């Protein structure tokens, strides 16, 4: 490889497009521009230009000198939310065309919060992505062992396809029963579609999801087709735009399984780019944790509307297979990020029995919190922070925006007065309630999964993360909080994509009951590993830059949930060893004595994660703070129930070397770090700020 060049990470969100550029000497510059919904590719380059300016370079100059660009995009997610995707037709097994309408009988409530499940008249299924008229059935049947029961009638597939095309389908998903066990029929039908209608975007469901369970697999395939044409065109625009501007390297795309994929894969399996933004934030945290010696981390990201949590154990993010996307259940390997509607814009209100509630409804960006002065009158968490003196109305977003403290107070009084609370008490109450909700999610992601939060360090980023995390993490008993590299925290996901390895996940569903000959497993793993190696070699990774990780999905035979059991390198494939690894993990997750070995242990699939290792980044330590400004401001601390004149440190870049005692506010260009009474903060490696809780 040539001398290393610039490394560029770009993360397109709904509101802003963020960029982080790491220079060959490890210096980092960031960029942030508004996302143009109609021309996201333009935003991509504008964000890079914004960050490049920090190095005194033009867009073209930085692209010419860059050797890696990794891009996280919400183009797919956004098309799904706004329902602007393709007109998808579905070809599926005869007799089962209704599976996507039935939604396992659970579609009325899937993805809804537990608190609204009893509100019967206001629950409904989501508008289908594929209307009934765009479903065609194919005569064929394969059974659970992959044996053909009824041969594929190609004429029926052709007829079905023509019907879909006549009805205006612009993309087609082929999803046949049991294709993870035998995909011959599915592949043949997909080939038929490609042959006779090369203009259509085609997805064979088992290629994007190897999950046994036709509903989730089919939905994964449908969403892939739904966002396919848009993502494909978008990737094309990025690729050609970058070439025109002189970029010679490869652009990689962030994917939800944690890592990146090539443009070709992003175009074929665009569903993998869904939710890649939050996942990149987690990967950035893995990198930072590795650098500063924190292998066990609970990662939190609080923005305007949502609070995302993920968990890193021994330096690896927790994964899951099943999730709900816009109320549709899907199954594909994803970094496990859970979220609730809690953010700066979360609205506080009184329910019918007079109780104070906060969220999940959000004031969004428009009208936004009352203090934005854009016509919002409902009190939000940000309004509460303004009233409490935590957010300075005169110095919001570098002082670029002026907030209206009176409007915030008036809004808070709407919920405070009926409860007989002063405006300060009500504002503190709103913060306590939202902090407590976030703490509930942290507990759910840790305690309930057998993890002790006291053994983890909390990372907090996102615009509101550093404001609230100290209270949230303390409530669940955590002892350390890290605000990662404060001046890049606001673009943390973009930064995270720069450190992402290339990752391919190969999953082979295979039902085996222990004991199984070790040689059988070796052989099955070997096949997956060969594929992984070949693909990575073709992508330019030499043998020493390839890492292969084996794991098994396993369960007690009487159960339906399986657990992914990672196997260490060179781990024995002996059945006793595998069973012991499974049993140990099971007890961690579900409690001592909860296992049930008498029922037998089954393997449900084999997984290989093939990782193409990127060149490790070496970040430069930030320079010491230039002109730190010290002052004080009255802040209302709910622990003390009173305003306290609180020290305020204003920093533009870099940190201080001394230990900083709370209560204290550290104002940074895009956020405020809150160090609560009794806590202490210290700038450390790479300029990260560690708070002892």
């Amino acid at each position, binding site marked *: 490889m040539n001398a290393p060049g610039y490394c560029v990470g770009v993360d397109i969100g709904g509101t802003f497009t963020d960029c982080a550029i790491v220079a060959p000497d490890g210096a980092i510059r960031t960029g942030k521009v508004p996302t143009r919904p109609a021309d996201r590719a333009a935003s991509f380059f504008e964000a890079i230009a914004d960050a490049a300016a920090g190095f005194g370079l033009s867009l073209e100059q930085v692209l010419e000198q860059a050797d890696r660009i990794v891009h996280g995009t919400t183009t797919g997610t956004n098309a799904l939310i706004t329902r602007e995707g393709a007109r998808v037709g579905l070809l599926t097994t005869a007799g089962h065309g209704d599976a996507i309408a039935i939604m396992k*009988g659970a579609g009325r*409530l899937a993805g809804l919060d537990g*608190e609204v499940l009893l509100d019967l008249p206001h629950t409904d299924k989501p508008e289908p992505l594929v209307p009934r008229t765009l479903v065609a059935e194919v005569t064929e049947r394969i*059974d*659970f062992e992959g044996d053909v029961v009824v041969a594929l009638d190609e004429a029926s597939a052709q007829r079905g396809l023509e019907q879909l095309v006549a009805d205006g389908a612009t993309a087609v998903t082929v999803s046949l029963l049991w294709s993870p066990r035998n995909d011959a029929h599915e592949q043949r039908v997909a080939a038929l579609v490609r042959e006779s209608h090369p203009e259509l975007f085609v997805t064979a469901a088992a290629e994007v999801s190897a999950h*046994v369970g036709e509903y989730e697999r089919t939905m994964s395939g449908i969403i892939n087709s739904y966002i396919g044409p848009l993502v494909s065109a978008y990737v094309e625009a990025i690729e050609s735009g970058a070439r025109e501007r002189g970029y010679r390297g490869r652009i990689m795309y962030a994917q939800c399984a944690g890592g990146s994929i090539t443009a070709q894969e992003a175009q074929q399996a665009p569903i993998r780019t869904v939710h890649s933004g939050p996942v990149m934030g987690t990967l950035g945290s893995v990198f930072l944790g590795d650098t500063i010696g924190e292998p066990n981390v609970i990662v939190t990201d609080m923005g305007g509307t949502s609070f995302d949590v993920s968990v890193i154990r021994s330096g690896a993010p927790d994964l899951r297979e099943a999730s709900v996307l816009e109320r549709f259940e899907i199954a594909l390997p994803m970094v496990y990020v859970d979220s609730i509607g809690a953010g700066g814009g979360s609205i506080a209100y009184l329910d019918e029995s007079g109780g104070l509630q906060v969220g999940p409804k959000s004031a969004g960006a428009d009208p936004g919190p009352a203090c934005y002065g854009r016509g919002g009158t409902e009190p939000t968490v940000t309004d509460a922070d303004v009233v409490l003196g935590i957010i300075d109305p005169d110095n919001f977003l570098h002082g670029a925006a002026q907030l209206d403290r009176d409007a915030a107070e008036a809004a808070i009084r709407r919920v405070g007065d009926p409860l007989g609370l002063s405006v300060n008490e009500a504002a503190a109450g709103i913060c306590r309630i939202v902090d407590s909700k976030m703490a509930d999610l942290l507990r759910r992601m840790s305690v309930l999964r057998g993890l002790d939060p006291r053994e983890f360090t909390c990372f907090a980023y996102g615009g509101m993360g550093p404001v609230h995390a100290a209270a949230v993490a303390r409530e669940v008993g955590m002892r350390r909080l890290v605000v990662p590299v404060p001046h890049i925290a606001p673009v943390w996901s973009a930064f995270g994509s720069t450190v992402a390895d290339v990752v391919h996940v190969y999953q082979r569903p295979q039902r085996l009951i222990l004991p199984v000959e070790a040689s059988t497993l070796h052989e099955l793993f070997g096949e997956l590993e060969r594929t992984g190696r070949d693909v990575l070699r073709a992508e330019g990774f030499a043998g020493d830059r390839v890492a292969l990780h084996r794991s098994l999905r396993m369960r007690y035979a009487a159960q339906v949930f399986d657990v992914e059991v990672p196997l260490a390198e060179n781990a024995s494939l002996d059945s006793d060893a595998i069973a012991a690894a499974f049993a140990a993990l099971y007890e961690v997750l*579900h409690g001592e004595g909860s296992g*049930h070995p008498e029922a037998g242990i089954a393997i449900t699939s084999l997984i290989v994660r093939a990782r193409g290792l990127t060149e490790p980044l070496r970040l430069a330590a930030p320079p010491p703070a230039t002109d730190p400004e010290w002052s004080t401001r009255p802040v209302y601390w709910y622990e003390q129930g009173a305003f306290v004149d609180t020290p305020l440190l204003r920093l533009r870049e870099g940190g201080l070397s001394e230990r900083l005692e709370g209560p204290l506010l550290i104002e940074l260009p895009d956020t405020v770090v809150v160090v609560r009474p009794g806590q202490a903060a210290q700038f450390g490696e790479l300029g990260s700020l560690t708070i002892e809780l």
Partner: protein
Amino acid sequence: MDDGILRHPQATPEAIASDVWDGREGSYIPPTPLPIDPSIELHREAQLDVDPITYQVLRSRLWHKNLEHGDVIQRVSGSVPVVYSRDYATALCTEDGDVVVVSPTIQFFSVLADPIVKWTLQNRSASPGIRDGDVFMQNDPYIGAAQQSDTAFYAPIFCDERLFCWVFNTLHVGDIGGVDPGGWAVNARDFFDESIAIPPVKVVEEGTIRWDVAEAFVRASREPDSILLNVKSALAGLRAIREQVLEMVESYGAEVVKGVMRRAIADCSRLVGERLARIPDGSWSERLYVTGVSPGEGATHQEVITLTKRGDRLLCTNAGTSPQGGAGNSTYGFLRAAVVAAVNTALAWDQLGCAAGVADHITFDPVPGTRNVARWPAAVSAHQSTFFTLDLAAAVTSKMLLCAPEDLRIRATAGGGLSLPLGDVAFGLDEDGRLLSTPSSAGEALLGGAIGAFPFRDGIDSGGAWWQVGSTAGNVETSEEQRVTLILFRSENPDSGAPGRWRGGNSLVCAWTPHKVPIAASAMYWADPSANPVVGLAGGLPGLGGNFMRLGNGAVGEMLQGGAVPSSRAAIEREAGELTRLHPKAITIPLPPGDCVVIEFNGSGGYGDPLLREPERVAADVRDGKVGRDAAQRHYGVMVGDDGAVDGPATERRREQIRADRLGGADGERSGPVGDDAVVLRGAGGSVDIARVAGTAVWACAHCGENLGPASENFKLRARSWQQAPQSVDAHMYPDPTEFSPTQLLLRRYACPACATLLAHEFCLADDEPWHDFRIELDASPS
């Protein structure tokens, strides 16, 4: 007093005096005050004036803790009923058993927590005693269980050596013996033929599992492995929630946490009271008929629930229900649980499952020795009256809501969900003769459910059930992996949701054939054409009650071998041969390879006269395959052309014809319209308003205003009415009940004598009086 302590007795003094309610001879009704051995000290101190912020934080946390309790159960059990059917529930109770929070899963399970805990306090506090670290289990329906398989596990939590609260869960554990495999003992003559029933017993004693007790329980089962797994999951859930409650007490103090519990009850009770007070006083009643409750028996039973509201209180009785007998009776505890659950959904949907606040408003007047308030030793495991009780509870609650202000009125819903219990359970034997069982046919297709129509919108196709929240019908592949069945099709069944101004949601139809299994059989339960619990509202039709069919001679196997997939009922009938209906209590039918069964699950009811539905909506349903052309014409009077568009003039003619047919050329007595400004309660009887004419409250057709007589009388007496064999109304929705029963059940229809708009439907026997189901007590003086 606003202190969250329930002071109203559960039942009327007359009812309590009429029988023994000890949970042994009769169902259990806790006495007031509850006698508890003085050796146990209860933690009663509650700081009720906890600040509003702490209150909200802790109330929300109690809800989340209770959800997490369920998460643990689901993951550890991992059994199909627990994961897919969500056939479990969790609850948190005060020291004396009042239910502070229930999980959004099976609604009636957690409401049964309070009699169970109270019985335990009353009968186990002296011996063997209730101590820190104990876990009790119980599954006796006469104390509180829907059936024996629904086993409760519950633990006291102590603070400072005083009993602070209880954590509780119930799981459908699976087969625990009895005459019929599975736990639904259709063949039971009485309690002694059924699954093992255990009154409260310690399964964990001061932290140590009592394997003697656990093994005694598991020993009764045909599937001991999976029972044991479920027991472990129940205990794991309790362990997790116990630690977390103790942690809360540690951080906030016992009195604050208890204060939050009591205030949650008080707040919920106050809100339910306010909502009830906004509904006019009155009385609402529903009756269901069922013919034959045991195999080979054909007596006709009726089950009745009546709900009466005065001010902010409800009185519920089952008077009118037939005497107990045969299989599938249910107990008082279940009646109460079903009614509390229905009122909870109707009036406390936003109160985080605080069942005690709802129960605080309901008094019962149970008539014992009946199908739905059985006395020991009536057989109670077969889940028949239980489901009817849920249907009846929802129906009377919905009828009450119809006269409520609009924000509550929209919560009325026609019958649906899993109205008729169960479908079929497919099972087989492998080469070694070991039992292979699947959850039920076609991947728990029954649990697809269907939600009935509302007063402002259609029901929900395969939308589950109101009381079985979050259940799923799973995947076909998951079901087939159990290696008994090849599921030929699983589809939404057109016209299973009933016609109405708003259409009922459609349910599922599916078919399976044995696959790669030496011996297969299908066990049938209760889809009974002689019962129709899928009630319509306001003149909307009742929905499909369910239907089982079979095709023998290996015909479907031949189709498959010939390269065809039997992908619908019509395809099977067209290409393989005619289906034969199966007796609803045919129990176990061996199914040779190549044969198949087709199961249509119950649908849901419609709301309002289908002739009032916009033709365009009907045409859209026809295009989407939700409504057939025949039903569009027959019930909706909508003529849809081959292009899928409405033929306007033909539709108008067809609708005129239907109206004329309804009036049957009869020029009945008419009273004339009341005038729009006379209406005081719109839609109070669903299809009928209440108006005030000359100082008197009268019923009036909601469509044309026709005066239908004094509100103190039954409006049906002034309606044009006729009755038909149900199959003549719609042979698909109402299969001929006389095929399996000597009793001719009829569908009676009521229409406005002036405008012919349908007002109501009821299933009845030929000589029944019109069912008087709406009695609204409006002050007769002009307002």
